[in-house]
């Protein structure tokens, strides 16, 4: 059962939140081999579920009341430990809940546990978790994508109806694509970053991973909205995305719910090197959107390739600054043996951080250092504006932009470990929207090589999440790719 269906079943009284939560906890434990779950507390979950059931008895309603979900372990929680997938934070207990966690709880959602991810959300395969890699439920010899790989695997394996994730350079969209589920990264500023362990503050955004656009709409409505505790939170009234999903478009006609919708296809998103399996799946989904009334138009994003160096300068620069807080003093790992304060910093950080995190701290420290700032960081920020302007030029002739999420289907576990820098290149299609701060989605678009899922990426202009979700919902009303489930789950 997805989010919407669970809501209906709970409302009907057929099953209670306590019963459903028990059932799902058992499933999570039964599929522990996937490596999706990092922490849970049955007593706490059942306490929350009982409270939700009591609220319902008292006449409370709401689509998320009693809905069991799980959080990426990058959101801090009072009730459960938070590690961000790092040894650095092993055993850390937050004194407060992240805003996203708090808001979902206020809407009645019940926390089943915390989900595995790449260390500090740095990675595209969830193999950078300090605890264990996450397996793709479609093929356990492959990665589920990352960094929100635990969230994606748990939703794809139907262990949870939905999960939270975060996306800095593609960390919601790419794992959603690799596991055949639906995920949305909203506009920068829609979801509060308060209580999200910081990676790159000008890029980090939270969003839901679920089975359908409708489920994502229900969750995003509860997760988003202005929060004074996040200095970059967008000051906008809350939006009812689920209602927008059902509202007919101005240009709609019978059988053509997407009438009048212009979808731009950047030729840079369909390079010759794109896997033919991915290209075919994406073109199949685009043909379906066309049948539903959308018009496909050609657009250009000429700096798509440049978004790789631009992102991999800006994100590590911000990460090196954010991660300087891990000094072994107030929280986090402290080395057992050291000579003095400086040695304690160095040993604690070197023992606590994994290889990819160290690599990015090194890149970030270098590009921010005296004499290199202008050539790297400043130049990257200027190019970032050019990339954002390119999108604005596209949105003069189209309402949405579409393309693949990733150049290939999920790769084999370990395949990228030989050449970590080369793996950055696979982020090419998700980075541009991240740098511009635009909302982006991954929607299941069929299957590629090895019968592995392929995601269609849809990108909209700032704060046009409703347009994104509406188009994705229309596609899912007409297709069944999002309903396919991996065998053995």
């Amino acid at each position: 059962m997805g989010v919407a269906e669970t809501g209906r079943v709970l409302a009907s009284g057929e099953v209670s939140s306590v019963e459903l939560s028990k059932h799902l906890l058992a499933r999570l434990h039964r599929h522990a081999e996937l490596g999706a779950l990092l922490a849970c507390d049955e007593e706490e979950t059942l306490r929350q579920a009982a409270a939700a059931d009591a609220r319902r008895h008292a006449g409370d309603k709401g689509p998320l009341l009693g809905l069991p979900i799980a959080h990426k372990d990058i959101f801090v929680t009072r009730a459960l430990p938070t590690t961000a997938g790092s040894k650095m934070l092993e055993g850390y207990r937050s004194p407060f809940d992240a805003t996203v966690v708090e808001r979902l709880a206020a809407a009645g959602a019940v926390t089943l546990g915390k989900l595995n991810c790449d260390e500090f959300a740095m990675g595209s395969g969830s193999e950078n978790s300090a605890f264990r890699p996450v397996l793709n439920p479609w093929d356990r010899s492959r990665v589920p994508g990352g960094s929100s790989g635990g969230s994606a695997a748990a939703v794809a394996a139907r262990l949870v109806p939905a999960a939270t994730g975060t996306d800095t350079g593609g960390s919601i969209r790419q794992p959603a694509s690799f596991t055949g589920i639906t995920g949305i990264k909203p506009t920068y500023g829609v979801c509060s970053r308060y209580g999200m362990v910081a990676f790159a503050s000008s890029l980090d955004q939270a969003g839901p991973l679920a089975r359908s656009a409708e489920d994502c709409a229900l969750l995003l409505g509860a997760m988003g909205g202005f929060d004074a505790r996040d200095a970059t939170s967008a000051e906008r009234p809350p939006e009812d995305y689920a209602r927008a999903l059902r509202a007919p478009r101005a240009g709609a006609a019978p059988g053509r719910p997407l009438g009048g919708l212009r979808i731009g296809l950047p030729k840079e998103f369909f390079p010759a090197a794109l896997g033919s399996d991915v290209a075919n799946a994406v073109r199949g989904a685009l043909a379906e959107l066309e049948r539903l009334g959308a018009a496909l138009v050609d657009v250009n994003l000429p700096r798509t390739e440049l978004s790789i160096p631009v992102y991999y300068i800006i994100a590590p620069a911000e990460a090196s600054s954010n991660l300087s807080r891990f000094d072994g003093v107030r929280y986090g790992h402290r080395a057992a043996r050291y000579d003095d304060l400086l040695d304690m910093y160095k040993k604690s950080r070197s023992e606590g951080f994994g290889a990819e995190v160290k690599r990015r701290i090194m890149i970030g420290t270098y590009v921010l250092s005296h004499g290199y700032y202008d050539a790297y960081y400043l130049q990257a920020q200027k190019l970032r504006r050019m990339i954002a302007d390119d999108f604005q030029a596209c949105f003069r002739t189209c309402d949405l932009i579409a393309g693949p999420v990733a150049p290939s289907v999920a790769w084999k576990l370990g395949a990228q470990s030989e050449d970590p820098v080369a793996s950055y290149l696979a982020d090419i299609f998700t980075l541009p929207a991240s740098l511009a701060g635009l909302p982006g989605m991954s929607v299941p678009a069929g299957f590629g090589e090895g019968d592995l899922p392929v995601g269609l990426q849809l990108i909209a202009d700032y704060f046009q999440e409703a347009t994104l979700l509406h188009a994705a919902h229309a596609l899912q009303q007409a297709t069944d790719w999002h309903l396919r489930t991996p065998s053995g789950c």
Partner: protein
Amino acid sequence: MPLTLPDVHAIAHLARLELDAEESHALLQQLNEFFAIVERMSTVDTAGIEPLYTPLSAVRDVRLRLREDVVTEKDRREENLRNAPAVDAGLFLVPKVIE
């Protein structure tokens, strides 16, 4: 100009990281491979382009929001100390700094 091993050691010191010989060599190679990709950036003329530090300023004026200078947090001293590796008498402990 490619980075050298002494560069890697200098960056590691700035980043407060201690790298063993194997890590240093691997990082030297990876960083140089990375900066070869980055060099493409320098070929673009960005004269007159304003840097985009926060994404929404691409389309609108983003002003830093200030709040009243008042206490908004609850006193969570005990909870905040709970995660520290070493505390004493309600204080975080660090190795001796001043001789």
